[in-house]
């Protein structure tokens, strides 16, 4: 076994295994490096980030576990095909900035995706090591490279091509809109992003909490886009403040990209849903994250006072995990996840489920709410639930939950958060009838170009797929940017 010194700032200098002389057997003998994190009993009382990030030593150790497959399957598992083998090799070699650059060739938001992508269903699932060992921690390494570049002040602004004189409007500042704007501005187009809320970032700021994705990271990404020349106009609701047709005809935009997300919360449709104390996850998270109600009264927006209360979140996705962990941090005595299937079927990232369990979240699986119960003043007092068992697989391949007879019981709770997904906000559809939408109100596009049925109008992200992931939204924004560029510049994509 050989050792060498790596070329990083002096305080990082440590002796570690030399990547050139390590055998596959030695690589496989290295255990998967744990992500350092805040102690669960401390972090469930604060809003600071849970994960602390790899040190350079941990990152290099982890990177050495990659056996550098000839035909890496992880790349195929990544929705935007990041050159995973190459960036991991750069980390192993101690070239952390090179690794960050390599990732950015394919992913414009690596610090964010490294934190929130469901890696266990994507790259890490495809990692060859998963067969016999644990997969390489690709997400943790992605995050490390991006954080290293940012924290050492080495983020370089990309070059912007000469102005093309073309104007593009991007509606929505979530990951789809931001990545679309990013690519278009670099190609020399003028880009204006219109955002409905007073803050930029979409779900990254109003949905995903600070303890999972620090807002400062999102802000820096947006500041970068501003420096490149992207114009941002907040407080503008497309369909109300301005319509797509007005953007094209009156404001002379040459193309419009719609990335408005999936922003219409579904409710359960059971009795008692309008009782005081019943929230949608969107409302609860928006109050806490966007309006900073955890700092009430210094910030004016109030939220249900969870201190010493019992809170149940209904659902099993990332949003549900975020809501329940937020309630715990706001002082909830008992914070439950109530899910109608079993833990294996929960769509949330596995890391979030583990973190939630460590933080003292109680998981009530195979349970379905029937009715919310309230007192005289209409405050929620409990949820009548029914126990379920797993039956035959349904269309999605997951085993269908079926009720167990006479298993009704009452779960005493003071607050309920409904987190069963989102539909599409109908504003654009209502005001732009010539954009074709599906039965579920999602916008229909050609997946190769993200073009809608309306000339010069493109769409991507959750408004097309329904609630999905950050990386898919980002990929869609980039596909659209390429197609818009080719269309506006008269480039034949097949040449």
């Amino acid at each position, binding site marked *: 076994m050989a050792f060498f010194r790596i070329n990083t700032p002096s305080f990082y200098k440590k002796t570690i295994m030399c990547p050139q002389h390590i055998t596959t057997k030695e690589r496989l003998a290295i255990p998967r490096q744990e992500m350092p994190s805040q102690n669960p009993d401390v972090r469930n009382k604060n809003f600071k980030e849970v994960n602390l990030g790899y040190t350079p030593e941990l990152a290099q150790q982890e990177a050495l576990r990659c056996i550098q497959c000839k035909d890496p399957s992880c790349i195929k598992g990544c929705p935007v095909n990041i050159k995973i083998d190459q960036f991991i090799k750069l980390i192993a070699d101690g070239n952390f900035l090179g690794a960050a650059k390599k990732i950015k060739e394919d992913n414009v938001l690596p610090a964010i995706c490294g934190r929130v992508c469901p890696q266990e269903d994507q790259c890490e699932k495809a990692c060859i090591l998963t067969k016999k060992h644990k997969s390489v921690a690709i997400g943790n390494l992605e995050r490390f490279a991006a954080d290293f570049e940012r924290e050492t002040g080495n983020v370089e602004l990309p070059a912007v091509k000469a102005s093309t004189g073309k104007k593009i409007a991007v509606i929505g500042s979530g990951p789809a809109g931001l990545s679309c704007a990013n690519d278009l501005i670099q190609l020399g187009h003028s880009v204006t992003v219109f955002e*409905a809320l007073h803050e930029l970032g979409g779900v990254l700021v109003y949905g995903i909490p600070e303890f999972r994705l620090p807002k400062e990271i999102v802000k820096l990404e947006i500041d970068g886009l501003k420096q490149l020349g992207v114009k941002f106009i907040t407080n503008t609701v497309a369909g109300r403040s*301005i319509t797509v047709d007005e953007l094209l005809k009156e404001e002379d935009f040459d193309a419009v990209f719609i990335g408005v997300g999936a922003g219409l919360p579904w409710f359960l449709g059971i009795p008692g849903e309008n009782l*005081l104390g019943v929230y949608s996850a969107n409302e609860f998270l928006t109050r806490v994250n966007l309006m900073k109600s955890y700092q009430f009264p210094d910030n004016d927006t109030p939220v*249900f006072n969870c201190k010493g209360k019992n809170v149940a979140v209904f659902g099993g996705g990332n949003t549900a995990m975020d809501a329940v962990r937020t309630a715990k941090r706001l002082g909830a005595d008992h914070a439950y996840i109530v899910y109608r299937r079993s833990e294996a079927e929960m769509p949330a990232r596995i890391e979030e489920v583990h973190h939630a369990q460590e933080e003292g979240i109680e998981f009530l699986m195979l349970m379905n709410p029937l009715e919310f119960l309230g007192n005289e003043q209409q405050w929620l007092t409990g949820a009548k639930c029914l126990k379920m068992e797993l039956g035959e697989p349904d269309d999605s391949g997951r085993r269908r939950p079926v009720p167990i007879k006479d298993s009704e019981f009452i779960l005493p709770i003071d607050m309920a958060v409904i987190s069963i997904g989102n539909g599409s906000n109908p504003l654009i559809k209502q005001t732009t009838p010539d954009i074709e939408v599906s039965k579920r109100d999602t916008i229909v596009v050609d997946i190769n170009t993200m073009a809608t049925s309306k000339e010069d109008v493109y769409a991507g992200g959750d408004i097309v797929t329904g609630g999905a992931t950050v990386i898919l939204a980002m990929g869609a924004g980039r596909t659209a940017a390429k197609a818009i560029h080719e269309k506006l510049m008269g480039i034949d994509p097949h040449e």
Partner: protein
Amino acid sequence: MHKIVSAIFLAENIKKIEIEAPRIAKKRKAGQFIMIRVDQTGERIPLTIADADPEKGTITIIVQGMGKSTKELNTKEAGDTISDIVGPLGAPSEIENFGTAVSIGGGVGTAIAYPTAVALKKAGNYVITINGARSKDLVILEKEMNAVSDEAYITTDDGSYGFHGFVTQKLQELIDSGKKIDYVLAIGPIPMMKAIAEVTRPYNIKTMVSLNPIMVDGTGMCGGCRVTVNDEIKFACVDGPEFDAHQVDFKNLTDRNKLYLPEEKQSAEAFAHKCNLQ
């Protein structure tokens, strides 16, 4: 940032504020509202666009100081700025030539009803306005209402001005006098809107009310503003704020608006304390 062009008190605690907002001024229709956030730590509150001047690029809001946010807004003067304004939001009022239309406003509801009364007049209706206040010094927009009305009535609870009694009594009087009424719009405190709904129900007069649930985003994203109409959940910020009065569950709205009473009290007291110190 939006600059305040003018700010004057119309009555004690009710202020008329004209603000620069060119895009909204151009686009807004009667019945629509804005969400406003006074400063970086402020909450987002809904306020109706009482008037707009597309040429000047300004909108007018009329604000009643209720709690922290509205009272703070009412301390603003010409030249001050407002951090965020978004709009126009909500579905515009349904405007057509109904025949005889009665617009009823209670308290600051008069200001909310005003733009719709203007639009009803423009659409060719015979417009009757009934505007109620607790007493004479709280009557607002009298001149403006007279200008758009074929018949204008003012009611005061204490009889210090106009008709002595409630707006419901005046409406009942009009109905009893044999006047054929085709459309009623009522905006004001929840008990008033509920009472109006009961007055018109037996006569099957189409009656709309503008609901005021607690809102957050105002764009349909959070569902906090949900109200029960015809036993269905509706989001007041996108499906409303105007709904068929005969189908609204007013009790549910009253209950839900009490969600943050302790917090509102805390905010208001802290604000009053701050004002006293200054």
